[in-house]
């Protein structure tokens, strides 16, 4: 179980110049970047990230690297893929990459998702960009014979990411959107309670929404269901050195600061604090 091993003991990281294979729009906001990257980059575990030196453009001069969670790491093909929303200085630079260009990337970094051997069925709940982070979790679960129910939330059907990635991995996929009101937390709660009652929720996983995190924490506490959350924070070094990416966590009745890049980005669900 390579992903479990990655979570327990991060594999070696490498700083490499990765050739771009493809960088195509998947809708009006997101692009899908495919890079040629051998080991150890292509061994990235679900939930691990890379620190990208995004190219500068005329208007945008990003100074820091940008952390980006892995959308897919394909050991056989020697590829690493990212699914990203073009939203700021760094991602606008990424969007200019063309096949044949090269991107400097450091990774894989951080502690990713892990699956307990006793879990038979898990529930994955994500929204927006968080869905890209959760996609490789479905692949890891499929490899380990764990059933996945994925609730994918977005503004509209056009903005639901990763549906095919989850379907390909055999996940039972439920799409909820703001457009038809199905993404409202109270309606997602009804879905989750149904999954708990049906015995399909041995563990909860989430990324991308504060309200959905708090919902899973509340139901998890109520039913004794463990879980994990992938968190974001602005980073400078990505290697645990600068202490800029700290967030508060609950640990043993105290509030402690942890580094998202080094102690995470995946954390126990019950320790995370909303934002």
């Amino acid at each position: 179980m390579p992903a479990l091993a990655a979570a327990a003991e991060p594999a070696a990281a490498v700083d490499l110049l990765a050739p771009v294979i493809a960088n195509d729009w998947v809708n009006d906001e997101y692009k899908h970047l495919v890079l040629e990257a051998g080991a150890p980059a292509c061994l990235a575990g679900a939930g691990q990230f890379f620190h990208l030196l995004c190219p500068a453009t005329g208007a945008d001069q990003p100074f820091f690297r940008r952390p980006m969670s892995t959308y897919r790491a394909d050991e056989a093909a020697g590829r690493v893929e990212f699914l990203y929303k073009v939203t700021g200085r760094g991602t606008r630079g990424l969007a200019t990459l063309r096949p044949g260009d090269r991107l400097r990337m450091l990774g894989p970094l951080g502690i990713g998702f892990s699956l307990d051997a006793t879990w038979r069925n898990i529930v994955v709940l994500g929204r927006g960009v968080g869905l890209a982070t959760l996609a490789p979790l479905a692949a890891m679960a499929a490899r380990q014979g764990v059933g996945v129910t994925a609730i994918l939330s977005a503004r509209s059907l056009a903005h639901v990411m990763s549906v095919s990635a989850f379907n390909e991995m055999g996940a039972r996929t439920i799409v909820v959107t703001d457009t038809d009101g199905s993404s409202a937390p109270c309606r997602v709660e009804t879905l989750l309670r149904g999954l708990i009652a049906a015995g399909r929720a041995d563990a909860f996983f989430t990324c991308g929404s504060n309200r959905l995190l708090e919902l899973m924490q509340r139901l998890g506490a109520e039913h004794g269901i463990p879980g994990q959350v992938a968190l974001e924070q602005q980073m400078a070094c990505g290697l645990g050195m600068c202490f800029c990416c700290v967030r508060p966590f609950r640990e043993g009745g105290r509030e402690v600061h942890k580094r998202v890049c080094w102690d995470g980005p995946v954390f126990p669900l019950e320790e995370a604090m909303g934002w």
Partner: protein
Amino acid sequence: MVDLAVRVGGLALANPVMPASGTFAEGLERVVRLERLGAFVTKTITSELRAGNPTPRVAETAGGMLNSIGIPSKGVPAFLEHTLPFWRRWKVPLVVSISAPTAQGFAELAAALDLPGVAAIEANISCPNIEADGHAFAMDPAATLDVVRRLRDATRLPLWAKLTPNTGAIAAIARAAEEGGADAVVVANTILGMAVDTETFRPRLGNVMGGLSGPAIKPIVLRMVHQCHKAVSVPVIGCGGIASAEDAIEYMLAGASAVQVGTATFLQPTAMTDIIDGLDAWCRRRGIACIADLTGAMRGDDDVLLAGAAS
């Protein structure tokens, strides 16, 4: 064969390249051969437990970054239990950066760190985030003299004083540190600055003000290194926006005996070893046998020229 060795502030270093405090930790081991560095410099530790500042703690600016990390510190016991044993695995000299809110606190902390495996103390008497309104010991010659004297009395270890650029009297501060007994001065910490988000009307740093570092500050700090080099006879360690071998050479020509690399490591984790390779290549190309000869070798000033550097 180029001799990259330098002697700095009581230490013999294999080369003049070391990390700047706060930009170096265990994680770098994953991508850099740490045994190649001239020295290790720890993140600043304090006796007090410090949580650090509110987020956001960094902001990117044109050619640089602002930070207000706030020196989170788990105190001396955690340092002795985890940090020191980790760095003792290498033969590279370990410089421990310390800070305290009082001169007495500095002295007590330095005394507590006179331990096997600690090669030198770097007294961070300059961090602009600690004191109210960014004030620090190293903004005042008298306060600098007092704290360095107390440190000198408290430890036999080589003592480096890290100065702040947030002063109009850097040469006088350097002289005060030398008079107090410092074996070297590190020039310099970050330059106090700020940034405002024009969409939200809020400061870009949780702490409002923070320290500017990176290429944007290099000409300012380079000038200060030169001023300090002319003002004191102890070595000057240059620190400010160094991202390439050429930057490091520029600092040495201006008077630095060694250099610290910080922000560049965040962008390129191999920056320090890349610079060491670049120094070696540059010296070969220029026929310079001993890199220590570069210190203060800038021409056109009133000092001696570097013999052998003529091309």
